């Protein structure tokens, strides 16, 4: 028989709308408006999880996002499942399923619970201390540790939901829609500030909305009634956007905040489809008003973690807001007046309150008197020394507290109860404030950390700013709004507040028990099972910094980031070490405030939108002709074109042979192209390339090598002089953007006197590279009127021409060593040009080839690829390219570095060719090279950078960098592999047509 703990109906719960849901496989009922937590409590379910380390039974502690215990797996086993969700934040809907985490086989009977009885063997730092030896065993230990720990399970199939990002710019962002936030947003918007108000809950009003305490009146109404009217008025205000179910996760510099807007998590499965589930709001606000409220503190006493032990404010909210009694025999334990408000709230609803245990000596406030009049027994100067009940609280024992609060005296009194509300005072929620980089100060009187300053960009108002009484809140809010928003009048000027609240409080961070600390379990961090004992142990072991104690004890390192217990941890450290809280400081509050889903973070950038990619204008042809593609930078480049089920090797061998024997064609559109103009263009090229450019005639092309200032090869490519003051530079495909950036940098910052203009034109041109002995015949067919004779159009020169009406630039340059032409046309004509070449080349067996064949052909010629044969540590001298480094030029980028003692060393790694003794063995790129096989440790001389089987040479060829390789020509070396040692001989890196006769063939 399930007890129904639903009390007097609440206006926030729709009792006509009954909802069924499952928890741990069992069906329960709740109402629309319930959270999973309130619905479970209404069904008298407190036990919802097991703790992380000791597997102790744990129940719902709070009513909000600070919940440390009631974290559940939502919709387990489905593709929408989500672990580590706080039951206090899950709005129930028909068909919701949830289950406990961190327990096996079930939350009722958990094998890991044995850890609780073994707990004397699990002190702080247990894992560090135990599993250190033998070192090689760590992997085995880790397997079991990972298996037994772990919070929840991640989904194993694709997330069916859509996520989104939105940028928002506003004048004023108000975080938190409690009384302060609502009044702040209202007044900002009324004064023509474009205002955004966000709150993590689905209802506006914070805790004031269920504040029916008759002692506090605003304009003669209860705070709840008054605030409802204010909220109603918000609807008619322009300039105001309100977002509920929106949690601010991070507050970065310059008022850049990230918030997660939850759109469908509260809907039934059928209503979730094709809707955006969560949206990441990227907010840039001119001013931020933090109204994030305060979190109630628990009290730290022996066995303070049993199911049924809750925050006093949570009990009040469950009763007032959700209409749920959390227990039938309630007791409160407090150090301030808050618990009395909760007790009265229950009393007024007819819920039994057995007693209030107060560690203060007394209090004379009206509300205390009222409680006494109600006949509720109050135990002054008493503390709880122990609690009983394994899966549900069934009793407490209390004793009289000594005057100094460090010990207990007298005899033990036992009180039977099934729910205990603890009230340890309030901690301002300063998490976002500190994330913004602002500093806190400690208020010794109130024993809280407060925002230290309100800058022009942000203010903290309400209880997160340290104001807890409604009259103070409204008065200070009024002044802060006027100062910060620079407005003269507000709505708040004439509000009349009557209150009867007292802030008297007796703060004891760790309450004593009749047992020594070693025999008790006063939990500080509920989720990570860190006790006061662990913190004291850490101090005894020499840890002093709060950051170190945190990591050693794992206090505050759970998914709740220690929202409840961190203050007590600090307090206990301060008391034990004899320092002041203010001197101790706090640990760093890091984003996100509450966990974010991966989906929210990535938004739309999934699947094919994961990364941007670029396609050439000829791409469609490659796709139609079944090319395989490879990624080069962001480009999708045709890799090879398999025919009739060829392997990559077979295709590349065929393509390579065809290109040398007759004709090949390559899509070279991806090469970076920079248009360079200006009267100093030649001088500029002189300064950025290693070779000389002044004498390059108009219409001629030249290969250039570009260095970094440190002398290392940075990029290479052919640059063509189109006119007196006009060049077009080509760069490597991957280096284009960086080269342009680097050139701009020098132009703007070092040589602003040069008259040079750079424009990236990579995307403006499509390039087809025709190569092979028949390339000339093919070009002749396409452009019959162009004189292709060596006299008119020699190697390394350029012509403008027309193919029909299409203007094109043709460079006779070669990366394969064959007679070849690069034809550039406006990008939109790229595919036309390509198809014309293919058509004209048919009779010559024109063969399209991809990047792999291009790499093979250039390797046969010993041409380097920057980034493959170089790695940022190779000078042109290392590459045996001395010929391209001008000795005459006074200066160029990187020149001085070529004369540093290090770059002039003889034993640097240098580029050489390698031939395998067995011509059929192809070396692995990256393989290491050694000169001795029987030496240990053996010296690594270098590694293979490029390696192919050359169909034209019918043998394996490779390029490699080898220490002192220049002087090793003909030397035998070894490439040791896993199963064999490969014998290799150092060779000239130019394997094919050393005399370059084919260029003019």
């Amino acid at each position, binding site marked *: 028989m399930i007890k129904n703990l639903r009390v007097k109906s609440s206006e926030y719960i729709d009792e006509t709308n009954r909802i069924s849901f499952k928890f741990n496989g069992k069906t329960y009922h709740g109402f629309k408006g319930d959270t999973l937590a309130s619905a479970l409590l209404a069904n008298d379910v407190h036990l919802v999880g097991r703790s992380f380390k000791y597997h102790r039974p744990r129940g719902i502690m709070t009513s909000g996002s600070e919940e440390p215990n009631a974290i559940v797996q939502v919709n387990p086993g489905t593709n929408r499942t989500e672990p580590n969700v706080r039951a206090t934040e899950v709005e129930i809907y028909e068909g919701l399923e949830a289950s406990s985490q961190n327990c096996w086989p079930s939350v009722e009977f958990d094998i890991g619970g044995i850890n609780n009885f073994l707990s004397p063997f699990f002190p702080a730092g247990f894992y560090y201390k135990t599993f250190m030896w033998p070192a090689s065993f760590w992997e085995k230990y880790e397997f079991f540790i990972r298996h037994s720990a772990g919070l929840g399970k991640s989904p194993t199939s694709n997330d069916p939901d859509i996520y989104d990002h939105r940028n928002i710019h506003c004048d004023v962002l108000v975080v938190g829609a409690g009384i302060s936030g609502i009044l702040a947003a209202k007044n900002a918007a009324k004064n023509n500030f474009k205002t955004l108000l966000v709150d993590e809950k689905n209802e506006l009003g914070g805790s004031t909305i269920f504040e029916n305490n008759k002692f506090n009146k605003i304009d003669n109404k209860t705070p709840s009634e008054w605030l409802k009217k204010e909220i109603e008025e918000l609807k008619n205000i322009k300039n105001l956007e309100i977002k509920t179910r929106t949690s601010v996760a991070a507050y970065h510099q310059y008022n850049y905040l990230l918030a997660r807007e939850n759109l469908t998590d509260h809907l039934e499965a059928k209503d979730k489809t094709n809707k955006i589930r969560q949206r990441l709001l990227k907010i840039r606000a001119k001013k931020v008003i933090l109204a994030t409220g305060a979190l109630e503190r628990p009290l730290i006493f022996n066995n303070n973690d049993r199911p049924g032990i809750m925050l006093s404010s949570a009990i009040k909210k469950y009763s007032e807001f959700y209409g749920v009694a959390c227990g039938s025999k309630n007791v409160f334990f407090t150090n301030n007046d808050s618990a009395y408000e909760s007790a009265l709230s229950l009393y007024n609803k007819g819920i039994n309150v057995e007693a209030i245990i107060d560690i203060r000596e007394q209090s004379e406030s009206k509300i205390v008197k009222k409680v006494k009049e109600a006949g509720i027994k109050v135990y002054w100067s008493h503390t709880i020394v122990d609690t009983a009940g394994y899966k549900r609280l069934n009793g407490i024992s209390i004793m009289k507290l000594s005057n100094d609060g460090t010990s207990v005296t007298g005899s033990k009194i036992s009180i039977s109860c099934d729910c205990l509300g603890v009230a340890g005072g309030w901690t301002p929620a300063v998490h976002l404030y500190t994330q913004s980089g602002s500093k806190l100060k400690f208020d010794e009187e109130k024993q809280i950390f407060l925002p230290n300053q309100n800058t022009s960009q942000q203010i903290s108002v309400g209880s997160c700013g340290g104001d807890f009484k409604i009259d103070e809140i409204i008065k200070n809010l009024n002044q802060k709004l006027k100062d910060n928003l620079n407005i003269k009048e507000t709505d708040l000027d004439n509000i009349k507040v009557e209150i009867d609240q007292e802030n008297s409080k007796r703060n004891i961070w760790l309450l004593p028990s009749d047992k020594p600390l070693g025999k008790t379990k006063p939990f500080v961090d509920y989720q990570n099972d860190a006790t006061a004992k662990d913190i004291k142990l850490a101090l005894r072991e020499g840890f002093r910094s709060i950051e170190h104690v945190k990591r050693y004890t794992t206090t505050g390192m759970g998914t709740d980031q220690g929202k409840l217990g961190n203050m007590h941890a600090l307090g206990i450290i301060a008391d034990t070490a004899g320092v002041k809280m203010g001197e101790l400081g706090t640990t760093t509050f890091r984003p996100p405030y509450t966990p974010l889903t991966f989906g929210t973070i990535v938004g739309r950038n999934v699947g094919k939108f994961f990364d941007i990619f670029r396609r050439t204008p000829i791409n469609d042809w490659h796709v139609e002709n079944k090319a395989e593609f490879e990624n080069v930078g962001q480009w999708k480049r045709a890799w090879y074109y398999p025919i009739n089920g060829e392997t990559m090797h077979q295709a590349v061998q065929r393509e390579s042979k065809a290109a040398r024997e007759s004709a090949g064609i390559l899509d070279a559109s991806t090469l970076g192209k920079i248009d360079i103009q200006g009267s100093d263009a030649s001088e500029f090229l002189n300064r950025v390339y290693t070779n000389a450019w002044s004498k390059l005639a108009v219409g001629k092309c030249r290969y250039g090598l570009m260095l970094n200032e440190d002398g290392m090869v940075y990029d290479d490519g052919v640059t063509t002089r189109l006119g007196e003051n006009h060049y077009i530079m080509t760069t490597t495909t991957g280096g284009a953007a960086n080269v342009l950036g680097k050139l701009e940098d020098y132009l*703007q*910052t070092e040589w*602003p006197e040069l008259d040079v203009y750079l424009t990236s034109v990579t995307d403006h041109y499509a390039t087809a590279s025709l190569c092979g002995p028949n390339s000339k015949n093919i070009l002749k067919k396409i452009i019959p009127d162009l004189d292709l004779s060596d006299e008119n159009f020699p190697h390394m020169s350029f012509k403008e021409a027309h193919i029909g009406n299409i203007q094109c630039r043709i460079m006779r340059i070669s990366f394969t060593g064959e007679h070849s032409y690069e034809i550039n046309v406006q990008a939109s004509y790229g595919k036309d040009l390509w198809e014309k070449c293919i058509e004209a080349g048919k009779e010559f067996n024109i063969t399209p080839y991809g990047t792999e064949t291009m790499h093979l052909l250039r390797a046969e010629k010993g041409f380097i690829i920057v980034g493959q044969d170089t790695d940022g540590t190779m000078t042109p001298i290392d590459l045996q390219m001395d010929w391209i480094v001008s000795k005459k030029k006074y*200066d160029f980028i990187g*020149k001085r570095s070529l004369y540093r003692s290090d770059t002039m060393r003889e034993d640097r790694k240098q580029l050489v060719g390698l031939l395998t003794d067995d011509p059929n063995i192809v070396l692995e790129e990256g393989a290491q090279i050694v000169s001795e096989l029987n030496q240990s440790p053996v010296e690594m001389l270098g590694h293979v950078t490029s390696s192919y089987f050359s169909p034209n040479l019918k043998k394996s060829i490779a390029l490699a960098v080898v220490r002192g390789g220049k002087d090793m020509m003909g030397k035998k070396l070894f490439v040791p592999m896993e199963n064999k040692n490969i014998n290799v001989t150092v060779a000239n890196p130019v394997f094919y047509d050393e005399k370059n006769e084919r260029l003019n063939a």
Partner: protein
Amino acid sequence: MFLINCPYCGERDQQEFKAGGEAHIERPKQPTELSDDEWAEYLFMRKNIKGVQFERWNHAHGCRKWFNMVRDTSNDEIKAIYKMGEKPPA
């Protein structure tokens, strides 16, 4: 995420910009005259100040212009922004 006031385009999000290291390090006019140590000083040695630092920034995904920024590295406050060639504020 900074909000950077590009001197040519106005306020833009940091993700449009690229940081370019310490400012006001001039490339030597006559590198060949320098000893290895002097050249290394120019090439490799950069300050890493906790406090006010002069930096180069580039509006890489905007106008592509380089400019200078004075930033307090301890709290990321941008104290001034000025164009290349302009005198740094005192």
